[in-house]
């Protein structure tokens, strides 16, 4: 009989609250929320809804203008399906579309590191022109700065966009109602897996391509067809789950989606399985969710299927409740989906 080991309970002291910015603050999850709530909103915002939605709507002499800003720090700069330039143009076009606006003009500011190859800059700028043409928007103004070698990670882009709101009623979380149907525009997880695979050199064949694309056409079509869209959100970092959780929190509603209804392409599924990544939280750059009244659900789905066969109704808004939550119907039961605390990392375990 061996001696019983003397057992003790040992755990680390918890991390103290951050005094410095950490990578997680840029992840789009809980830490980003905290940063907005504790640093930015007190200084800039007036209400809960400022600063959290994709863009702002300003009334100027009777016209409703949508205004948005975004920065792009993607690594690597070039990936299958796009580059930092395509991301920047489409990302801003999409933020405007999510306000129910037709994009009118974009500005881009370049922060370029000394020594950055001119040929790569040209490639990126050309991508931006191509993306802008495809999205029917113009790049009208911008700025350029160069920082010393070692201080810039190659290239950072900041874009701002302006659009004309064409939705007759506001499109924002306040309009979400119990009974609303959640319609997803296509399959999820491509962009995040494309970038992760490229950055980490995962050697996937064929390389997964980003879904980076403009979404204005689909949105304008829904508006044209008279769909009373309550809320729109494009899925970016943090994926489908994060987008819905944010709406649920802002609108103080509970939402439920079903695991089995979320479309995921075979390569993304394969990549997520081998790395142990949850596709519901993987970034997208060409997908959105629309929350529409129940009676408009089928029509919305039919219209979106005209652009992407994989569009699907994935769930419903259940009821008004503080603080708002998202639940997932699984094979065996139901579980809550929470914001991630940091970027998802491949697992061994």
């Amino acid at each position, binding site marked *: 009989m*061996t001696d*019983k*080991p*003397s*057992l*003790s*309970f*040992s*755990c*680390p*002291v*918890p*991390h103290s609250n951050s005094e410095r910015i*950490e*990578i997680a603050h840029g992840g789009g999850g*809980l*830490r980003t929320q905290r940063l907005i709530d504790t640093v930015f909103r007190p200084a800039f915002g007036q209400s809960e809804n400022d600063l959290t939605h994709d863009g702002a709507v300003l009334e100027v002499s009777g016209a409703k203008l949508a205004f948005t800003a975004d920065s792009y720090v993607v690594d690597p700069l070039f990936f299958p399906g796009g580059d930092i330039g395509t991301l920047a143009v489409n990302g801003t076009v999409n933020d405007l579309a999510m306000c129910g606006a037709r994009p009118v003009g974009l500005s881009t500011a370049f922060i370029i590191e000394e020594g950055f190859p001119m040929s790569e800059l040209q490639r990126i700028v050309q991508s931006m022109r191509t993306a802008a043409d495809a999205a029917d928007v113009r790049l009208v103004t911008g700025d350029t700065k160069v920082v010393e070698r070692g201080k810039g990670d190659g290239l950072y882009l900041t874009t701002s966009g302006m659009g004309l709101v064409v939705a007759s009623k506001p499109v924002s979380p306040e309009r979400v109602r119990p009974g609303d149907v959640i319609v997803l525009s296509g399959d999820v997880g491509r962009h995040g897996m494309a970038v992760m695979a490229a950055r*980490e*050199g*995962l050697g996937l064949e064929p390389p997964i391509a980003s879904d980076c694309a403009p979404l204005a056409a689909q949105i304008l079509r829904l508006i044209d067809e008279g769909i009373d869209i309550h809320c729109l959100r494009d899925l970016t970092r943090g994926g489908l789950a994060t987008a819905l959780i944010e709406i649920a929190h802002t609108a103080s509603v509970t939402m439920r989606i079903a695991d*089995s209804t979320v479309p995921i392409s075979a390569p993304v*599924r*394969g990549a997520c*399985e081998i*790395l*142990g990544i949850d596709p519901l939280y993987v970034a997208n750059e060409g997908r959105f969710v629309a929350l529409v009244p129940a009676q408009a659900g089928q029509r919305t789905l039919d219209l979106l299927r005209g652009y992407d066969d994989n569009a699907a109704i994935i769930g419903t808004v259940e009821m008004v409740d503080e603080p708002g*939550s998202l*639940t997932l119907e*699984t*094979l*065996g*039961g*139901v*579980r*809550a*989906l*929470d914001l991630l*605390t*940091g970027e998802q*990392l*491949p*697992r*061994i*375990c």
Partner: protein
Amino acid sequence: MKYVDEFRDPAAARHYADAIARVTTRPWTIMEICGGQTHAIVRHGIDQMLPDGILLLHGPGCPVCVTPSGMIDAAISIAERPGVILCTFGDMLRVPGGQGSLLSARGRGADVRMVYSPLDALALAQENPAREVVFFAIGFETTAPTTAMAVLQAEREGLSNFSLLVSHVLVPPAMEALLSDPANGVQGFLAAGHVCTVTGYREYEPIARRFGIPVVITGFEPLDLLQGIYLCIRQLEEGRVEVENQYRRLVRPEGNASACAAVDRVFRVRSQQWRGIGEIEASGLGLTPDYEPFDALVRFPGTAVLPEGQTSCISGEILRGVRKPCDCPAFATGCTPEHPLGATMVSSEGACAAYYRYRRPLEPA
């Protein structure tokens, strides 16, 4: 996906859950000892399908969670040495030791890189002859062969800039330590299917006999887990004590001979610290004398590996299965994935983190 989808059929799963309910006449406590199984159970809601009275406990099966904090600190101190590239699996990056995590070390300028396989670390050593590449070798018996092969290839190629910080752990000694504790209430075990793919399951027979506990080697898909639980309950209800293999498509009694041979050549068994539990004899792996040149602690002398300190979190009891995450007063309040107190909350595979992400606040009405 073949060999995955067939074992995720929802209708079959519901029928299996009914079958479990039919054979269950009494409460039973079953432990699984694999972070991957914990993850799958909670992800698919398997525990929500079981009859009340079947208690599924999550033992210390997450290699990331049980890595001693002193080893993490050692990894950080090695990573901070000039010229070193420290390679680690992704889920190890955010786990705090006593002095922060590898991720925060990277934030301070250490060259810490995430790898999917030990062979990726080896490739980095080949591509960077002027740098010292150190691989943080954690994991159970499933992973040890992969580390062993990296060492064997490094030896074959005469690489002098590749070394390992070894913290591999073994399952059966942990099971024995758990079952030897008179306070433990475990009546049946689901053994980790992928570990047994490598080791086989002959070692489990003496454990089953000694403690009178049925052991079912179980896979990872919903139908595997349900079938494993079903077989375990059948044994308990019928008073049998056997080692049964549910994961027959991948597990043979003798395991994978070439993988075991590689591990035996490169590693030897030694005593090991388990975070939140303490020292368990003969439960870890160290490099054999022939392979000591590949030991990062030998290559970087002066790297301290400090013993575990004492705090008040109950992760040790959770890992031993005597308490559940929701029993902890700090669960989801003072202790969250963002501010973890213990290993079980730190890693996304830890029982507390899994519970936090997947179960709170929904308890069935």
